[in-house]
């Protein structure tokens, strides 16, 4: 297992009122993303535990593009990864942002 951590300063706070959301499952080629509204508005943190070693640079690029595109300010993402491909990671992150942006608690 490899632990990765990324911290970004972002333009704007993420929309919605839900405090947390979870998408995906941990399985081969899949991952779960837990997102929590627990940070100051201009910060975004992504914590990753991955079964696939040595993909730090790819993760960095995927997270960088994601933060740039969605500006998920105030959100902390915690990922358990079963060796998912970057496109699956991007999709789950986007799904997590969509879910937490819904109304609710």
């Amino acid at each position: 297992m490899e632990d990765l951590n990324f911290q970004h300063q972002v333009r704007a706070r993420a929309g919605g009122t839900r405090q947390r959301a979870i998408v995906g499952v941990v399985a081969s080629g899949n991952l779960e993303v837990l997102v929590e509204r627990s940070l100051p508005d201009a910060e975004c943190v992504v914590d990753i535990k991955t079964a696939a070693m040595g993909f730090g640079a790819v993760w960095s690029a995927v997270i960088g593009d994601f933060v740039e595109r969605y500006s998920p300010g105030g959100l902390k993402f915690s990922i358990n990864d079963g060796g998912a491909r970057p496109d699956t990671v991007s999709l789950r992150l986007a799904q997590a942002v969509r879910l937490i942006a819904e109304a609710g608690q």
Partner: protein
Amino acid sequence: MTAPLKDISPAERARSTSFYEASARTRLELLLDAGSFVEFIGPEQREASPHLKIFDLPEQFDDGIIVGHGRLDGSPVFVAAQEGRFMGGAFGEVHGAKLTGLLRAARQIGSIPVLILFDTGGVRLQEANAGELAIAEIMRALMEARSAGVKVIGLIGGRSGCYGGGGLIAGCCSALAVSEPGRIAVSGPEVIETNRGVEEFDSRDRALVWRTMGGKHRRLIGAADVFADDNVQDFREAALELLGLVGPFGLDRLRAEQRRLADRLRSFGGCGDAVDIWTAEGIAHAEAVPELPADQFIALANRIGRTSRDAR
């Protein structure tokens, strides 16, 4: 462009969502009254398995099972749903303890039923002793809850089936609903093949696997009382139906179960294949049973009339 799923009613969504394919969370969301679900020790608590790191394996925040409280047609229920895609839905220490705690609470309260959405290959190999023991504790807690008047309904239709100790827990439930892709057994097909050879059981012959362990066979021999079509709404309706049917547990049930199982052994013990059993049940063209659509199959199963009602 695409019709947003939000625009359709929860029941329509539940009707169009395959139980087999859905995640444990989606199953619960659509099975229960909309918005009623409250989770106990949710993923944000990060109570993952403490043992997987020994094997350098990824954890899941909820350890592959979701337990909580919700409403079904307005009435309170406790629910547990296994995620069959995470480690095959297998029982580990934390996973099992969540269900044990839920059943113990149900016992104490006495009046709130429990729904268990099974999706499991059995004991989790990497924590085999803890998983095995968790299953023993669940069986004990389940029977204590039933003895205190709690109805415990099992719903089986996930991709990992209900194998190993999961099959034994299912055997302890007040009643079961099963769908065609759902499977109930103790030993998995590969395990039988590995131990006894491909002549005994060809695990790649999926038609054989399903007619031996699958939902239709389990319904026909009376192991499950309701056959659900593979969608969440049908399982919701099955759960409601079973909650209405189940009576209190007692010694008479165990005696009736002894007779029921002994009778099964007498009637079908010499059969080499499920088709022989179905034929012995008086089903013409028994070999066509796997192809029957749900409505025709349900009519057939009701005509055969084997159930475990009041006998489990």
